[in-house]
């Protein structure tokens, strides 16, 4: 494993675009820490974002993981180009001739995703912890780590998404097309949802609920659901509008964890099968 990781990180280290994208990602994440310092002047009184309570423990875990998840597209470009460039530079063939087996090649990419995501998750954890410690009034450890499962959900959803990028890269062999195919797949999932909710309405089925948990992109994004309606101000707003009590399950659902893990396995395995069957 160490050798395979060494090989993949060597490729990553010497790729300028990958490094630039990762640095942009890291800078944005770290910059998040300073958003709370930003003070608004509303009618003469100074208020900072932190006064909204969004940086309070344990809410911070949920909010930050949700927001930072949007940035995963930057890393997706890194993963896809690391895979697709092997095809466009024809280095895949050379790697195989030099003695890397097809299995090792996929494994080295997968290990890279694993370690890279671990590093990102650790960073997000640290940023959240620091933010919370700076802005939150809660200091008891048992209260601080109450919703820490969002960090785990962040990790699992990112692994699944990057495994999908790996598969897309192997499938179409070109970075731009691979990203395009993920986008098209996202639209496809939306269309499926449209159709299924129509069918549900018409025939009284519950396909929508099932698909929501099964389709890859949706189960990836459902691991961390949106946290905004949880903020008291927004929640009261919705309740006033709808004239009913607003309830939603914000927690990390086991079904999503399992489905995402299954997709991760499938995408990695399919990448290997595809590589094995094809003559590069």
């Amino acid at each position, binding site marked *: 494993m160490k050798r395979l990781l060494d090989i993949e990180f*060597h490729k990553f280290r010497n790729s300028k675009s990958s490094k630039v994208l990762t640095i942009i990602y890291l800078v944005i994440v770290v910059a998040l820490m300073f958003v709370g310092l930003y003070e608004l002047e509303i009618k003469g009184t100074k208020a900072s974002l932190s006064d909204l309570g969004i940086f309070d423990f344990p809410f911070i875990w949920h909010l930050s993981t949700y927001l930072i998840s949007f940035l995963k597209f930057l890393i997706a470009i890194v993963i896809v180009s690391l895979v697709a460039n092997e095809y466009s*530079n024809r280095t895949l*063939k050379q*790697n195989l001739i030099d003695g*890397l*087996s097809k299995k090792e090649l996929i494994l080295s990419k997968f290990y890279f995703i694993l370690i890279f995501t671990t590093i990102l998750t650790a960073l997000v954890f640290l940023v959240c912890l620091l933010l919370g410690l700076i802005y939150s009034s809660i200091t008891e450890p048992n209260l601080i780590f109450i919703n820490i499962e969002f960090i785990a959900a962040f990790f699992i959803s990112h692994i699944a998404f990057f495994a999908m990028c790996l598969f897309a890269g192997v499938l179409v062999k070109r970075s731009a097309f691979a990203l395009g195919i993920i986008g098209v797949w996202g639209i496809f999932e939306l269309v499926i949802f449209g159709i299924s909710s129509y069918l549900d309405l018409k025939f009284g089925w519950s396909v929508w609920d099932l698909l929501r948990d099964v389709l890859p992109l949706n189960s990836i994004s459902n691991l961390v659901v949106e946290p905004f309606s949880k903020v008291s101000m927004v929640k009261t707003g919705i309740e006033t509008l709808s004239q009913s009590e607003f309830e939603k399950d914000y927690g990390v659902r086991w079904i999503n964890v399992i489905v995402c893990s299954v997709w991760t396995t499938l995408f990695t395995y399919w990448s290997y099968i595809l590589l094995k069957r094809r003559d590069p």
Partner: protein
Amino acid sequence: METILEINQLHKNYGTLTAVDHITLNIQKGHVYGILGPNGSGKSTTLGIVLNVVNPTSGSYKWFEGTTSNHDALKRIGAIIEHPNFYPSMSAIQNLELVCKIKNVDKIKIQEKLAIVDLLERKHSPFKTYSLGMKQRLAIASALLNDPEILILDEPTNGLDPQGIRQIRDIIQKIAANGTTILLASHLLDEVEKVCSHVLVLRKGKMLYSGPVDEMNRNHGSIFIDATDRGALHSFLKEKTYVGKISTREDGLEVMLYEGVDMAQINKEAFENGIVLSKLLHKKQSLEDQFIELTSQN
């Protein structure tokens, strides 16, 4: 003698096209083999299969008498296929470091191998800034990193200028002198003739010939002969067992030989028969002639 590679009934179809047609061959240690064949004759596909890159349709191959798995065997082989493939933004050093990691060899070799191919001066420049000749030389350095027991080169001089071709040829000869087995696929016959001891000839995926270069064709070349009395010479030659087809040229007779003959002997016998030769010249058949003859048959 130690067998390095054994290929048995190897076959590859791309759809309805047959690229490699039931090829069987052995590569022995210490020889320099040339693989000849027109474009599309299956040279690269055959090499791709034994290098574990292309999946064969049927048949099998065995490296190093089957003592290691085909995957581990690759670590004892050095190979370049078609164009030199490296990471464009990495320098020579960085690219070779990666190859070292893949092949599990020490980085110490890098300097030594770059020196062999004369690339030390540009070792820190990115690969994309290299000329084709330099890229090809870097590929050779990369293939040599693990001190391979066999070096496989597929069209190493393709697209190079005369200096580049000369450089690559010198490098190959240097490596061959160290006793490394070499498999050189090329359609530059003159190149193969200069460096190879054995040849394999492929055409449309079939093996036409395999053996030493100088035994490639059973004939022994031809002689150009002339005398003042051409008619007498013609009838004199016709009786000899070693004489094949005789064709009359403006400046004499061209005689194909069935066996090796001593030129002095011919001269002496002719003189004893009252024929005074005005010209006697032995011409060895070039590899090119033999190759064209072989591949244009059938």
